């Protein structure tokens, strides 16, 4: 059984992959507040988003259907963190 601390560590590791992906897409990622809007700031644009969804699928192991996902869940790092980890603590 996975303990809460294991789960938190897994989420942190997953978020490192997410941040690394965004960093490669845009240098400004490191200076981001985790509540800033990734789409509005064009850190994630329509082209990068397709690959970003594949990354999330890779991380979570669950298929992501781009046709049914809610973009609102991907707008900030905190929301992505919450989505990946269930109940994530804010940064």
């Amino acid at each position, binding site marked *: 059984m996975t303990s809460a601390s294991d789960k938190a560590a897994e989420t942190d590791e997953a978020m490192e992959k997410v941040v690394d992906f965004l960093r490669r897409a845009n240098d400004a990622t490191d200076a981001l507040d985790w509540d800033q809007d990734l789409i509005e700031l064009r850190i994630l644009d*329509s082209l990068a988003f397709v690959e970003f969804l594949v990354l999330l699928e890779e991380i979570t192991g669950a298929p992501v259907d781009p046709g049914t996902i809610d973009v609102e869940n991907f707008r900030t790092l905190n929301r992505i963190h919450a989505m990946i980890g269930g109940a994530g603590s804010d940064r």
Partner: protein
Amino acid sequence: MNDAGSGAMLARLSEKSRHDHYNPYTRFSWPDTVPEDSWWMTPEYLTTHGTGLVEDERILKALARRETVNFFSLHVHGIRELMIGVSQRIHTPDFADYNEYLHHFLGEENAHMWFFAEFCYRYAGGIYPEAYSPVRGEGFGPAWEDVVVFARILIFEEIFDYFNSRLGKSAEIPAILREIHAVHHHDESRHVAFGKQLLKHLYARACEQDQAGPERRLEIENYIKSYMTYSVRSLYSPHAYRDSGMPKALETRRAAMTHPVREAFHSKVMARVDRFFVAAGIFQTAWGVGNDVSK
């Protein structure tokens, strides 16, 4: 809107289209089956080639089948975008000089879309869905939108032609596949020549109309380069990797996509269109310099 030189080119391309016209629905002799133990794609054109990540020939042959489906599906979806773009513009004042050739262009693209889809439905259970982004598009304004649409079309045509021209001559793949690649390559040489001419014209027109100046041009350059990266990634289909039955499909896909051998190959595939963008003044620097598809 075009000068005498491009007028002559359009007349020549239209004449060639009339001369080379064929009925796509009777052009091919479709076999009952395409053997699964054959290579549907020459191994050197598989996206894992040169990485050493997959050695099992059974899986590589399955990947060849699924990458063929992906490749043809990308054609189908790319052609849809192209046909929408051209249909929206044909017989409008800005494209008046292109009307005659655009009719041939649409007719030929319609034929291509049919035979690529037909192969997938006949032998492989259908096409893969389009990679869809839930995030809204670019919004560069009408004049730049023309540039962006036709730049995207040119990029996908050039990528596909790289493979079509080679696989159309490959003795290793089944005859029906070789023929599809060869027929497409034959038609696309005209379309690429036309696309380059049109894009240069549209770019000059957008620069003239636009008040934003060099910043906007840089923004367009960056967008087109991102689209080139996106196009390279689209060759590494998550569906194809999974459906090939390989273990850790998505991890292997990412490792292949970012492998140094593959990065060199991406530059090779893109070299011709990259050179065009630089020579046309649309790029200040080539995409191939420091391209990184993991970005």
